[in-house]
């Protein structure tokens, strides 16, 4: 039997079901997408490129996971699931600030069982040294007095009683899913 070539398209069909094949390129997803209005993100184009076996060089991190596209798609294409597939794939490589963001967040959960906000934000802002990030950080500094005054941020981690159980879950997920995390 001839083996199917493992193109991105075939891989996505295998992992997320064949729903993507039903896309008829109507653009309702793009018209419904909030971030498409304010950036160059375009879910229709991402789906199209996958179907045509073109390289998908889009910034998938601009998807906010709002599920409007899939709710309105006349063919029920699960676009957010397909984009999540691309995000998980992108997480396997060294990456941009979104990859750093996710890693910093999950590091905190793996260590403490819960999100340690002050620690996670500090790690994220320190490891992300792009110009965009520096501008963002300077902008956000204006919010710090508010957080301090209103006592809104936890400066100390809350740790679960049995953090080893959580570390074990992370370890098992890495093994079973064969991913870096």
């Amino acid at each position, binding site marked *: 039997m001839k083996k199917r070539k493992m193109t991105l398209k075939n891989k996505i069909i295998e992992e997320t079901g064949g729903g993507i094949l039903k896309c008829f390129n109507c653009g309702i997803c793009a018209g419904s997408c909030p*971030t498409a209005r304010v950036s160059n993100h375009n879910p229709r184009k991402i789906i199209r490129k996958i179907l045509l076996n073109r390289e998908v060089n889009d910034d998938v991190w601009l998807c906010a996971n709002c599920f409007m596209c899939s709710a309105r798609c006349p063919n029920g294409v699960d676009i957010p699931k397909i984009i999540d597939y691309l995000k998980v794939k992108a997480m396997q490589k060294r990456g941009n600030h979104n990859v750093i963001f996710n890693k910093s967040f999950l590091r905190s959960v793996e260590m403490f069982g819960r999100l340690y906000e002050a620690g996670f934000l500090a790690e994220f802002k320190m490891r992300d040294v792009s110009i965009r990030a520096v501008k963002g950080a300077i902008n956000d500094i204006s919010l710090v007095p508010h957080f301090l005054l209103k006592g809104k941020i936890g400066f100390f981690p809350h740790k679960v009683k049995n953090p080893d159980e959580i570390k074990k879950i992370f370890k098992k997920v890495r093994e079973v899913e064969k991913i870096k995390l």
Partner: protein
Amino acid sequence: MENNPGYYPGCSLTGSSREYGKSTEKLYEALGITLQEIEDWVCCGATPGHSSSHLLPDALALKNLSQAKKQGIEKLITPCMACYSRFKFAQYNVSRDPGIREKLEEILGEKYDDENEIDIVHPLDNLNELVILNKIKKNIKKIPEDLKAVCYYGCVFTRPPEVMGVSDYENPCQMERLLDAAGIETVEWNYKTKCCGAALSISDTEIALDLCKEILSDAKSRGADMIVVACPLCHVNLDLRQGQIERKHNLKFKIPVLYITQVIGLVLGLSVEDLGIDKHFVDASKLLKEKRLM
């Protein structure tokens, strides 16, 4: 008699959005309902979880649900929309996909128990249950004067519709019904279930600022005095970042953003401090005094 409902506060409600946690707890206390917190609960993984792994978020959710079952919890109140969504997704996946179930059972080292599936409930639905809604109506202490609100639900309370179990995903009405019971007028608007940018607020702030500018502008143009929300991320983006949005787009909004639990708490006579309304970025006290809620 039904036993006490379970309660999963999650990281936001015990951290930067603690006023949502506090107001939820105070409101339920005022309604005479004891919430049973899941012991030693763990984070749901939020957006970074499902962007990094297909199995981790479900595994974390099932870990919490398994602990809840040990405590005899049948109904779980989950106020944070992100956590609420992750729990619903986990139940949806594990009950429909045998492949995923097998992997999750391997990760957690225990069988998933279908028999006693926990009912994951958001306060918006729970407070609308007839017995509770009647209790709210009977206990109203303060009637606001000519107060207009828009209700902002955000994304995941209704979407994906098949996972969240709703049919009308663009026009939910739970908050309208609650505010109506509280004597607060609600106005129709365009952004009920449109996205605020969610977690992009931290990683790609400009996008969130632009999306929220549209939401705030529409609320203002519809003549709303305040925006009522039920999600910590929506609150951060609309309240905490409101000053940044005003500066970026050279506009003035100064529109208070309150959690539904705070608004209902107020009409039931709870104090601004108890409800954590003094923790917000946009000061609500002038409006609340004017409308006789304070």
